[in-house]
Each structure stands twice: as C-alpha cells, then as structure tokens.
C-alpha cells in the first residue's frame, strides 16, 4: 500500500481514530495512576475485565459493545474493590493483592471463555480478540463509542481537576480540608477502569498495562506540572497510537497492539535520555561540567599555594599527568589564567612548567577563599 492510498482506507481510518482516542484517554488518566503509585492497577484491571467481557457476551448473546463494556466495568471495579479489601483487612501487601486479583479474575474469565466455546454460539468469534486486541476489527460505531467515553472522561476530569490534583499529591491535606477523598479516589479509579476497558479491544489485555504507564512516564520527563504532564501524556498516547496503527497497516500483517506499545516505549526511552532537566544526557553533561569546574579550582589552588610558599621559585608543583588534567591545563591557558614556559633545565628532558598570570592570581585567590570558607 502506498502512503497516500492508505489515507482513504476505511479500516485504516477507524483504526487510527480509535488508537488516537485510546492514546488520549489512557495518557491523561494514566498520569494519575502513575503519580499515585498505581501503575500496575491498569494491568490488574485489564485482566479482571475479561470475565466481565464474557458475562456481557453471555447476557447480550452477541458481541455487543455496550453490554461488554458494562460487564468489563463491573468486574474490573469488583477486582479493584477486592484488592482494596485485601490490603486493608489482611496483612497482604499491595503487590500480592494485585497479583491475586489479577490472576483470579483472569482465571474466571478463562473458565467463562471455555464455557462460551462449549455452548457453540456462532457469534462468539472475535471474543478472544479481547485477549490480544484486534485493532482491525474496530468499527466506525466503536470509534464513536470510544469518542463519547473519552469526552465524558475528560469532562469529568476537567470538572474535578482541583480535587483530583490535591488528592493525588496530598491526600491527608485534602482530608483535613473536608474533601470527600474516598469518593474522589473511587472516581479516579473508575475512570482509569474506563480507559482500560476502552483500550481492551484495540491493544488487548496484556498490553493495556503499557498504555497506562508509558505515556505518563514519558510525559513526566518533560513537565513538572500536572496540567502539562496530562496534556503531554495524551499527546504521547496519540502519537504512539497513530504510529503503531500506521506501521501495522503498511507492514505485512503485523499486530497493531504490540506496535502501539513499542512506539510508546520508544518515546519513553527517548524522553528518559533527552528530556531537558530530567534527561540522562543532561545529567551526565552536568556531571562532566561539575567535575571540570572542580578540577580547574584544584589546579588554581595548588598553583597559588606553591606561589605563596616559594616566591619566584623555578620549580612548579607536581600536577597529575592524566589526559584530563592536561586538557584542563590547556583550557586554563586558553582562558588566559596560566602561562606555560619551558625552563632551560640541565637534566634530560625538561618538563613543562606552569605559572599563574595576573588574572589567574585573582581567580585563584577567590578559589582559595572559597576552599577555606568551606
């Protein structure tokens, strides 16, 4: 397929729009999940949605998007509640409770899935698409549906913005202000569930975990404000969704879900490396600069001290002969703080000697004062 003709392709349009919507909703709500330390909640909920999908199917008798979503919401929410109950009322830690809910609900889902297969309902096809996601099966009606849910979720988020922010960063303070913290907690979790359920059909149960986490982590690199982070995360979600969908249409039968996830992961890697301020590249640059400054100060200090001790002496102090030191000396000379001269020594090969220039002396005085103050 050529680049232009795929834009006209109806399936492609559906997939790309769906992927973009998924990116928006999972990016925006995923930011909250990641900041609240609930990154793996998305994973647990997406697995727990499976029995709901099956139940919805059994009740509706066909692959009806509405009933499946309702079912998935119900079991996903139930799993979240059970998880809360396990951590609050027993001595299990969060990770064990998460793993427990995830695997149990998924097991129930598998059992229901085989039960449905056993009943021989002809319209069961496409049901297991929820496991791995089948973006190509996205219908125009599904896109409208996802668009509606995204709109609702974003509206609720905008309406509850202040409260959500406060509960995320300082739940205790919010409580003292008399905010219904638990209610807002439940609202946020519900909306994360909603995002997960919407994404199930596109990228599947397993990969939904990444769609919640990856855009948020990438966005965290670029912004220090919640608002910026949410917007950027949504943007990252859209970019990775569209990229993944496009590659999968152009490539030969590559699954869409994994491609979307890999695009998102690539963005995360780039963000980790490059983002200004928090990027790894910037941090190493900063480290190198710090080391360089320290070294320069050391050299100036040593030269100055020797100068004080033996005025007009011919012997310059011993300086390390490492490449780093040589480079540092060269740079100091370029800055006009040092001069080099070669004494007419009798013995063998004379070493280069270094002497402070008047500017160098001034600078070295400051450094010395700084060292002594510290």
């Amino acid at each position: 397929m050529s680049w232009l003709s795929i834009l006209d392709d109806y399936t492609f349009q559906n997939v790309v729009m769906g992927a973009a919507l998924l990116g928006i909703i999972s990016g925006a709500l995923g930011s909250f999940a990641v900041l609240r330390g609930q990154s793996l909640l998305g994973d647990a909920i997406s697995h727990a949605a499976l029995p709901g999908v099956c139940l919805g199917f059994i009740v509706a008798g066909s692959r009806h998007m509405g009933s499946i979503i309702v079912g998935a919401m119900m079991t996903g929410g139930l799993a979240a509640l059970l998880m809360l109950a396990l951590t609050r009322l027993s001595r299990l830690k969060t990770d064990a409770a998460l793993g427990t809910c995830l695997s149990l609900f998924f097991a129930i889902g598998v059992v229901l899935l085989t039960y449905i297969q056993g009943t021989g309902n002809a319209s069961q096809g496409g049901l297991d698409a929820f496991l791995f996601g089948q973006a190509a099966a996205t219908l125009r009606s599904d896109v409208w549906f996802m668009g509606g849910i995204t709109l609702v979720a974003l509206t609720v988020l905008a309406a509850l913005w202040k409260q959500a922010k406060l509960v995320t960063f300082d739940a205790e303070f919010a409580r003292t202000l008399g905010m219904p913290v638990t209610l807002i907690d439940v609202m946020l979790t519900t909306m994360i569930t909603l995002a997960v359920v919407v994404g199930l059909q596109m990228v599947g149960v397993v990969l939904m975990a990444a769609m919640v986490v990856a855009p948020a982590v990438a966005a965290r690199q670029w912004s220090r404000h919640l608002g910026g982070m949410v917007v950027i995360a949504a943007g990252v979600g859209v970019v990775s969704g569209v990229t993944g969908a496009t590659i999968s249409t152009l490539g030969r039968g590559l699954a869409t879900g994994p491609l979307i996830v890999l695009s998102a992961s690539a963005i995360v890697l780039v963000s980790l490396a490059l983002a200004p301020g928090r990027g790894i590249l910037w941090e190493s640059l900063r480290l190198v600069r710090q080391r360089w400054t320290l070294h320069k100060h050391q050299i100036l200090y040593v030269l100055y001290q020797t100068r004080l001790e033996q005025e007009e002496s011919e012997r310059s102090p011993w300086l390390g002969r490492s490449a780093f030191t040589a480079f540092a000396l060269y740079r100091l000379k370029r800055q006009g703080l040092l001069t080099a001269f070669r004494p007419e020594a009798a013995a063998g090969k004379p070493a280069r000697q270094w002497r402070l220039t008047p500017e160098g002396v001034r600078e070295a005085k400051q450094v010395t004062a700084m060292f002594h103050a510290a």
Partner: protein
Amino acid sequence: MLVGAMVGIASSLLGTFLVLRGNSMLSDAISHSIVLGIVVVWMLTHHQSGPVQLVGAALTGLLTVFLTELLASSRRMKQDAAIGLVFPALFSIGVLLLNVYAHDVHIDTHTVLLGEIGFVWLDTVSVLGYHVPQALVSMSIMLTLNLLFIALFFKELKLSTFDPALAKALGFAPGVMFYALLMLTSSTAVAAFDAVGAVLFIAFAIVPPAAAYLLTDRLWLMLVLGAVISVAASISGYFIAVHWDVSIGGTMAMMTGAFLLLAFIAGPRYGVVSQRLRRQRARGLADVSESALY
C-alpha cells in the same frame, strides 16, 4: 491433575519468597516476557522444549528484572511503573516476532496466555519404556530443582528475605540469591507454560503463598501450607472442570482463589472474622475494666 499439582507445588514454593519480599508482580512480568525468550530460542534452534528452551527463557526473565531495576534505579520512576513498562515491551517484541517468523508454530499466542492442561497427554515422550507426558517430565525436573534449591539454601533465603542488610553484612550475597530465585521462577514458568499458560502460572505462584501467609507466621509452615493448598486446588479444580466441561487450568486457579478467600475470612489469627471477634472481646474487656474503675 498430577501435572497441575506439580506446577502448583513448584511455583508456590518459589512464590512464597516473592510474596514475602513484596515482589509478587515480578512473577507477572516474568511470565509474560519469557514469551520473547521462547520465540527467540525457537528461531535459533527450532527446539520447542528442553533445556535450551528453559535456559533461554530464564535469561529473558533475568533480562526483565535487570531492565526493571535499571529503570527504577535511574530514580525517574517507581518500580511498579518500571515493571509496567518493561514487560509489555518485551511481550510485544515476542508477539511481533511470532507474527513475522513463526506463523505455523505450535506456540501460538493463545496457548501462551491460557495454556491447556487437558492437552498435555497428547505430547508424550518415552521414559524407560513408558509413555509419559512431556510436561510431567519437565515439571518434575523443575520441582526437584526448586526443592533442592530451597532445601540447600533455606537459611540463606530466609535471612536475605527478611533482613537483606544483615544478610549482606554476613556475606551471603542477597543479590545473587535474588537472581537465582528469579532464574528458577522463570524456568518454572516456562515448564508450566504448556500446562497452565502465563497468567494462571501467576495464580499458582502468588495465591497459595498469600493464603498460607494469612494462616501462619512460620516460614517452613508457609511453604508446606502453600504446597498443600495448591495440591488441593488442583484436585478440586480438575473435578469441577470435568463436571462443567470448562478450562481445567482456569478452574484450578479459581480454586486457589477460593482457598485464599477462605483463609481471608476464616483464618484463625489473621482472618476477618477472628479479627473482629478479638476486637469485640478486647472492647468487652475494656468495658469491664472501665466499670471496675468506677
């Protein structure tokens, strides 16, 4: 049924330590990302099972953990976010490779997630003249390995689980212990793959130990109870599955959950009911002592 029980024992033994260390979700991550290892090894050697496969997959498991620790130690995200990033990425690569190179392999994506314990009888090898299901052989090897590991290093494991700092001070290398444990976890996950699939492996690795943890404070008793619970779950799950004609692995995992709920509600010391009773009794005592004051 026998295979299920063995999967249960083997994985719950290792799972005990993961649950105690607060690393349960690592088993989730590992069990997903070993798909990549399985596919890569298949592409290189065209072996679907056997020791090469186990080692390859175990290495992928280690890679997962290593990458997770790397991301978390960059202090730019929490460990759970790192887990949530690493394993879907590795899993995606695995699925894509399957897509491209392995259209007609038996490891299709469904068995990977779900497994079908009912089919293990079809895949037999002959050992000493008997036809034995392959899964049974690989599981018994893994079970023996795990038992040996725990028996040999019980003291070291115990110490590095409960007090890593002290273990390090005594020169026990808790890091090595940790990676050895995870190596075994991923090997067991591979061996358990055909039988129960990735997700239900997690059920066996986490839920029985969690249930046992609600029942006892003693490590060895927790190991034994975890094993007993998984055996009981396998047996009861098998009969329920046959009765309703549904996925056997699924019902087995569901039964582990039933036992967990039982422990959660009715456990003698940490169960909800006994906690409530104790609280009421304490309140009763408080009332008595209060009335005695006046």
